[in-house]
């Protein structure tokens, strides 16, 4: 048989679990968009380009905010979303490939804001300028490798 004190203990234990139950309900995060991992290479006149920035701009009904990747020494890139996810959502994209260099030919420092940097674009505008680019990509689960063969003189 429970005396008064036993009932009190049971009650406090009950409230303890109730409180724990409430606190366990906090902290969840919404699901993100499904992403397709996109990779590829950038070649300029047949030579791999290192440190070029490949940017995918979403078009038409494409979801998300696009993505970008930087090429390594063998010209390979892999896209990331601005939030750091791997790949981009499926859909149509306009693509730019940009390679900026300082007047002395060196690469700009990675943490120098581009808008305040003296570095200039070295690739033709039909690849590097968002409003003039001719590069396009349709990303889907069957198309996730995009290789760009660029020519230094444009066409």
């Amino acid at each position, binding site marked *: 048989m429970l005396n008064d004190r036993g009932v009190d203990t049971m009650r*406090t234990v009950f409230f303890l679990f109730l409180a724990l139950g409430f606190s366990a309900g906090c902290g969840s995060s919404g699901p993100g968009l499904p992403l397709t991992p996109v990779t590829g290479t950038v070649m300029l006149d047949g030579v791999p380009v290192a440190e070029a920035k490949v940017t995918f701009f*979403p078009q038409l009904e*494409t979801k*998300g*905010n*696009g993505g970008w990747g930087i090429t390594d020494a063998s010209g390979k890139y892999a896209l990331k979303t601005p939030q750091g996810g791997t790949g981009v959502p499926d859909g149509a994209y306009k693509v730019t490939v940009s390679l900026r260099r300082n007047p002395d030919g060196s690469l700009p420092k990675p*943490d120098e804001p581009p808008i305040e940097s003296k570095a*200039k674009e070295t690739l033709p505008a039909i690849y590097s*300028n968002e409003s003039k680019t001719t590069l396009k990509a349709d990303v889907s689960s069957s198309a996730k490798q995009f290789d760009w063969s660029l020519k230094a003189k444009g066409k």
Partner: protein
Amino acid sequence: MTLVFSARRGFTLIELLVVIAIIAVLIGLLVPAVQKVREAANRMSCTNNLKQLALACHSYESSYGRLPPAGKGYGWCASTAGGTGDTSILNMSGWVLVLSHLEQSALDSQLNKAACFSNLNTAWCCGFTGNANGTVAGSVTVNGALSATVIKTFVCPSDPGLATVEYNSGGGQGAAINYDFIASRSDSGLGTNTNGCNYWNRAGASRYMFGENSATRLSDVLDGTSNTFMIGETCKNVWNGSNLSWAYRSWVMTGVDPNGGLNIWYTPTGGATQYGNLSSWGQAGSIHTAGANFAMGDASVRFVRDSNSSTILSRAAMMSDGTVNNVE
């Protein structure tokens, strides 16, 4: 005897531990709750500021028949002599014209609207050309000094960012603003390098409600004022470029352009994402979780989620592109 003793005995160790555990759990619940309440209050005050600004724009519209421009007389956009640039370089922000509708008449009367608000007449750097068609109007001294005035309605209390503007006006550093007109980044004239000034006049169907020398009537908003972004929220910390001033427009300080997405934060190479530090100029964002506030053309304020894609956001910014607003 034993009964009397047991009835008067103190707490057992278990009981004490249970009580301590309960107190610990309650404190654990309460402290984050207090922080949340503080942010909720700041957020409400932030939303209210935006509402005040939207109403002030409507009040301006009822006085003059048109909404204020995002700015006047940009000196840092590209223009050849005889080109699209304004002949008188003022670098004035449209908020200066709205001050008297925000109960800031005293400040309004001290500003000299015939003189420039920033004396920049070239691009900031890097071989971009400035407005070669204009000359700087008057001296920046008076307006430059007054631009440091902090006006509470222009500041979102949730944002711990810089209180001053990164780019100097020539007459001093202005006070930062958390809200700005929806204007296209193309207002900067970047990428044209010949005649980029007054882009709004040439924007056609992709016109936003504001731009350099814009003069939108509410009846021009064919997509419906309740569907079109009018004023957007932005952050006081910006990595690539500058935050915004209520008084002047300087190199790439065009306004807020939701195209490109909300809350796109700067991540240094090999470092952690810097929440509250926007990755580039002209972007919309806030540190309220998962979105930012926007005032629509009808002066209603909406919390727009950062899960919206760039294409949907830019359609909501264009005032007469004829597409349905799917913003969530």
